[in-house]
């Protein structure tokens, strides 16, 4: 807060140009304008402040159809579809790698290697294979996240105490029931961490992909890219803030909470 105040104050005293580097107030304006709310916090104080000094002639539009809301809907839909596919694929492969040693020996190092590849590096391959379309964006998202899910799931499953398996067998949990009633619940801590990690990979990959793909439906990455093309630094910063917020909120309120619930159940917090 202090930093923001200092920044704003310095800005007003020195009088930088907003297109070089924006003040917090410009970023707020840009953010609200993308929501079809017309404000001008960034203008010097005047009678109409914080409304723009010269009122816009355009008809006011509903925030529901504003660019930012639409971009969020588009991006989050892609995220939901891609992340679900990534979980399915990564989950299956992680499970297979855990059960089948030869597969693990073959795929494990490969996946670890591919995981170090920044996800935007999948963009050219996506374009050449699928063209510039939704499928290519999903391709980048999935490639960027499912290795991480598979690897962390395999590692997590590997840490299940063998005693659970023996106890389950001893009590008559055979065949699929051993998986359903013993190994699946036993792997919950591993599953939640792997989901959490997978999500952050998926979100980053999606933003990268959207930034580079100009497709029909415009996601958050597209807004960022537009800001760059219009040299609208305030918009660029505003979109970045939205991206960070979404990532943080999802992590804090979905994945971290899930992890906490599971860890409490397993008594993993008690040690701390």
């Amino acid at each position: 807060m202090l930093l923001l105040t200092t920044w704003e104050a310095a800005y007003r005293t020195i009088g930088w140009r907003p297109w070089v580097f924006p003040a917090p107030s410009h970023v707020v304006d840009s953010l609200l304008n993308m929501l079809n709310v017309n404000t001008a916090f960034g203008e010097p104080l005047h009678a109409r402040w914080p409304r723009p000094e010269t009122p816009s002639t355009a008809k006011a539009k509903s925030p529901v159809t504003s660019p930012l809301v639409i971009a969020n809907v588009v991006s989050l839909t892609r995220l939901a579809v891609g992340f679900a596919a990534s979980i399915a694929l990564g989950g299956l492969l992680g499970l297979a790698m855990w059960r089948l040693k030869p597969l693990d020996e073959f795929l494990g190092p490969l996946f670890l290697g591919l995981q170090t590849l920044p996800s935007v590096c999948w963009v050219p391959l996506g374009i050449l294979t699928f063209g510039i379309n939704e499928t290519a964006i999903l391709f980048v998202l999935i490639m960027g996240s499912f290795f991480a899910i598979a690897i962390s799931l395999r590692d997590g499953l590997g840490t299940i105490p063998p005693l659970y398996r023996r106890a389950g067998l001893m009590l008559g949990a055979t065949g699929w029931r051993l998986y359903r009633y013993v190994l699946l619940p036993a792997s919950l801590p591993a599953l939640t961490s792997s989901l959490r990690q997978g999500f952050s990979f998926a979100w980053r990959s999606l933003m990268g992909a959207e930034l580079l793909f100009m497709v029909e439906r415009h996601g958050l990455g597209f807004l960022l890219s537009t800001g760059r093309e219009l040299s609208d630094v305030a918009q660029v910063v505003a979109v970045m803030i939205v991206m960070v917020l979404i990532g943080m909120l999802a992590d804090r309120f979905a994945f971290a909470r899930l992890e906490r619930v599971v860890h409490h159940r397993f008594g993993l917090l008690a040690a701390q």
Partner: protein
Amino acid sequence: MTVARAPHISSPGITAAPPTASTTSGGKLVLRGIDKNFDGSSVPALRGVSLTCAPGEFVVVVGPSGSGKSTLLNIAAGMIHADAGEVSLDGKPVDGPGPERAMVFQDHGLFAWLTAEQNVEFGLKMLGVGRSERRDRVAAALAAVHLTRSADKLVHELSGGMRQRVAIARSLVVDPKVLLMDEPFASLDAQTRTLLHGQLQELWLKTNKTILFVTHSVGEAVRLADRIIVLHSHPGRIRREINVDLPHPRNFDSRDIGELVHVVRREIEDEVNRVNAIGAEEVWKPQAAADLGAPADHLGSGI
């Protein structure tokens, strides 16, 4: 003033079979000629081990670590396959783990994501027992180990002793023919252990289960067993069988038990020394153990 009696110790064959209860529920566990070699080990873990537990008998296998006693138990459980020999329960060969040979592990092995009650219920669920019967049997099992009030606690909220009691309840609730116990009290403190010895004895007298119990503690063996099997290590073989003819329920503080512990300890002293010497770097003979002796022998001597 009573005269010190001779310790209640005898060799099999000399005394009559240990006092066993009715055989209606079955539970005759037979291990015959068990050989087991683990990969990469030059000495077999077990060689030619044969052991029969009569229905309702409490058999304790004692031996130093590495003597293959846990391996023997796991073979009886069907968790490990023997290289040679056979295991049978009431005449039926054992070829895998199952609830008729329920096991209590040293590290309890309770499912951390379930409450005490749900852990006990687990085996019944796997057996397909109906909901209302399940509820009754779980309640009875928890009551038998005096844990009714902790039914809703998660595993990490229970103390070590309570966890083992839940583990025992979980094994008994499925009504096994044999209860296999792998050093179940080894990681508990002495007071809790004594408490659980009492509870286990009480449970055993009430349920009449055949129990095969593994421990390295001679005191524990003498307190609980009808018959003690002393295992020899490198390779694991049965060295001696000792019948404990003390009546149940036993008072663990009684002099008889103290004396018998002393005698059994002497029996296996060579073996412990031999095992210790295997680990020693040079030719090293452990000194004769500082033995306090049986209390009755020396009581008042030198006054």
